[in-house]
């Protein structure tokens, strides 16, 4: 079971955390909502919960609660630039269908 970051994503995250001035890492999660049933959450983590799964990817700590991990296993988080827009993108092998917006998915 693992979740990884691309090197570019890791660099951006490390940079954001440094500028933000605090945070132990990045918390990824899944919650039920959105047009395709599930939605990703992407947040700064200020503390580690007892049952968190921890992954180290290019020096950035990624925290995922056990329930979310089932949906995220094998996911790679990338940082991409599309025209003027830039941000994070989930490459998740588990998904069966995805809402056009990219924020919401089904498994």
């Amino acid at each position, binding site marked *: 079971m693992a979740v990884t970051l691309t090197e570019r994503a890791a660099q*951006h*995250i490390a940079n*954001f955390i440094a*500028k*933000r001035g605090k945070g132990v890492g*990045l*918390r990824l*999660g899944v*919650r039920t*909502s*959105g*047009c395709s049933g599930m*939605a*990703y*959450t*992407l*947040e*700064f*983590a*200020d503390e580690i919960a007892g049952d968190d799964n921890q992954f180290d990817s290019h020096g950035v700590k990624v925290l995922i609660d056990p329930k979310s991990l089932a949906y995220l296993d094998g996911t790679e988080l990338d940082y*991409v630039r*599309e*025209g*003027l*827009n*830039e*941000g*994070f*993108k*989930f490459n998740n092998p588990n998904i069966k269908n995805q*809402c*056009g*917006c*990219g*924020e*919401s998915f089904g498994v």
Partner: protein
Amino acid sequence: MALLQIAEPGLSAAPHQHRLAVGIDLGTTNSLVATVRSSISVVLNDEDGRALLPSVVRYLADGTTEVGYAAQAMQSVDPHNTVVSAKRFMGRGVSDIAAIVNLPYQFVDAPGMVQLKTVAGVKSPVEVSAEILKALRARAEKSLGGELVGAVITVPAYFDDAQRQATKDAARLAGLNVLRLLNEPTAAAVAYGLDNAAEGIYVVYDLGGGTFDVSILRLSRGVFEVMATNGDSALGGDDFDHRIYCWVLEQTGLFALSAQDTRLLLTRAREAKEELTFHPETRITAVLSNGQAVDVLLTSKIFSEITLSLVNKTLAPTRKALRDANLGVEDVKGVVMVGGATRMPQIQRAVGEFFGQEPLNNLDPDKVVALGAAIQANVLAGNRSGDEWLLLDVIPLSLGLETMGGLVEKVITRNSTIPVARAQEFTTYKDGQTAMSIHVVQGERELVSDCRSLAKFELRGIPPMAAGAARVRVTFQVDADGLLSVSAREKNSGVEASVMVKPSYGLSDGEIADMLKASQQHAHDDMTARSLREQQVDGGRILEAVAAALAEDGELLNDAERGKIEERMAALRVTLEGNAPQAIKNAAEALNRATESFAGRRMNRSVQQALAGHKLEELES
């Protein structure tokens, strides 16, 4: 497809619920747009990676427009239709801009604001600014991948209501929802996180391309109050370029250059200035149109010397602003540097020495205002948790209305944080009064004549009632941009009237400071004047009531009693002419005592009349 940003812990938005908000620095020379991405405020660049958008709009004959660099490039070719510095005309009449000379535009005097004649028709400064805002909005929506919920737009601290309203109108024309107009120095302070810093006095030193502004801010309980502003609207980085240019002419013995050569040397001068920020010396080289070569060495020492008087020209307004705020340099907790020209080392040094502390300069001085506006926009759009402090502005002068005798009743007091709404109940002064005049005033003094009149309106259609029976609720509401609306409603009948205070009534900070000073100097006089007017109003009301009673029930009195009352009335009338509040009070009390038994008899009579023809049981039930 949307790309995700990192949220604060526990604040992930539901899909499609991201609230995109931007901060816009709508500048005289350049404009910028910024947003908060993954908790960090960043300026949004254009397709070519440029952050600045020159605040230049060119109107073409076919009705289309060019904005930014494209328009700037055509400035010398098509000067009449290429509008620069529209910000200087916002909310201004022809007389206001008469001082700005050498403008290539054909002005049209329109009520309220000047208009510019272009090949595409007459355009107002609001429309020009809207074009700039539209370009920034398009850039933001492309960069963020969605529609904006709103924007915070910055304005100079000294902008009056008319200029602020014009800025809001421009935003509306550009299809932007204005979350808030924010003072530029306040935005800069927010960018440095000073709103979460220690309370105290902060100075914002803003030296742009063509203007210099200094603002003294006081932070207390999360609120920035602008205490004083000063500056020089014709001093900026361009003047430093010009000094270098003149120095080059001196060194080389050149004179009477063609326009083209002048432009070339000015460009070289600007490059030299920028070079000297990082290097101790720089070489200025150019080949003029006649083939003559220019090659001189400019050291930062010489640069400092030839621009010393310019640097000092910024310190004089700074000193003055501090004095206006009754502060010394030792009171200043921090100094924020804004504007590209503050990169010059001699400016940094001079400001550091003046205040005896290192100025804050680690953010890009060109971007700091937009970055602060973006942080504020992010909070206002609801993207931060509730306990985050919301930056608030305050009302600089109390707002109130005129009551009987020309006295001011303050409804919203000075330094209240906005937005704010306050209501107060007033009543009629005379029996059967069917209308009430509401006179809205601004100021700290006790008498209407010493305050500034903002608006007047009438509440009509109050049903005739005894004096004091009507209940008129007057509500003052100031929105987040400092614009006031006043409404009045008589509660028994429901009649209503209201007014939006016309923005042309704005006051400059200087006038506000003068009004505050006057109120402090006249505090004692005002108190006396107020108590005199109050007694006069009271005395007048008693006289009226007694006169009405005499007319109605005069036969209840014998001649001696009546004579005594009339004597006391005359005495009260005499004191009302004078200016001794105590004398009026005494005379009024004397009249009250003289009418006590008369009042008792009237009461008995009216009770008898009310009871006549009724049985006891009827009254008990």
